[in-house]
């Protein structure tokens, strides 16, 4: 029908030839709240070819960080995570795990079937644990989901400090600072 224009979106972009007029806007995007599309009305005018919109989701992904990767493990506070796209490029603000080891991504998409992938990675732990910083992918089929994240205790490392000018002569006392 002439009054309805459908624009296919791929990787955030879509294009179409359309007449100048005012339109109400809706969307059909699996996993997202279509009532949240903003703006929901747009005037297409001569001379303006680019139009931007946002859409929200209502799912919650909790990352529970512990020393054994289970809900019974010792929680780790201060672990940081960030959302990414499929190429690993970061988007949005970092989140940090609290005293219970929970870091929460709100407003993430979910659907029983066909929900889009959620990409994220860990960017830091609490300073005394190792972590996996590779890109992770998850799909939510329910509105809330908790994912267990393992951060192992940092391995014991040995450092030696010797005198520059007398090979092998250990420095008796002092500190090495790593930052």
């Amino acid at each position: 029908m002439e009054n309805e224009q459908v624009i296919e979106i791929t990787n955030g972009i879509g294009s179409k030839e359309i007449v100048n007029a005012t339109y109400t806007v809706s969307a059909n995007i699996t996993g997202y709240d279509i009532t949240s599309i903003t703006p929901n009305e747009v005037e297409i005018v001569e001379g303006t070819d680019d139009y931007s919109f946002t859409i929200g989701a209502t799912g919650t992904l909790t990352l529970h960080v512990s020393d054994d990767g289970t809900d019974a493990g010792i929680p780790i506070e201060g672990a940081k995570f960030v959302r990414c796209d499929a190429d690993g490029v970061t988007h949005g603000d970092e989140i940090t795990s609290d005293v219970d080891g929970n870091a929460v991504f709100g407003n993430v998409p979910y659907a029983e079937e066909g929900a889009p992938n959620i990409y994220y990675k860990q960017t830091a732990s609490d300073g005394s644990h190792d972590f996996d910083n590779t890109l992770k992918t998850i799909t939510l089929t329910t509105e809330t989901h908790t994912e267990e994240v393992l951060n192992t205790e940092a391995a014991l490392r040995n450092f030696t400090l010797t005198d520059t000018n007398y090979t092998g002569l250990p420095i008796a006392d002092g500190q090495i600072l790593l930052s």
Partner: protein
Amino acid sequence: MIKIKCMLDSSIDICKCRVRLYKNDILLIDECTNKYGYYCFNIEKGIYKLKISNKYYYPKIQYFSIFINNNDEEIIVNFNKKHPITVRLVDNYNLPIEKGRMIFWKMNK
């Protein structure tokens, strides 16, 4: 006198819009608008169907049911031009939406 006036985006006269007038599904008039966007005619009182069409602008065909009495009337038919637009859709994290569709419904304003 009945005047049909065809315009583009409510501002430019369109010549060579095809004007067809029917009574009881019988074609009575099949003419084109002039360079001022007008086609004018006289016809007896009654109920008619008007079909206005254009090759280049949208909607390409428009229909009207009209009642003609003894008064002069002008019917303005507006067409619109299309132009390409790009839309960008992101979520709360400014992440591009991987796949989906947007639907634009034209409002009658």
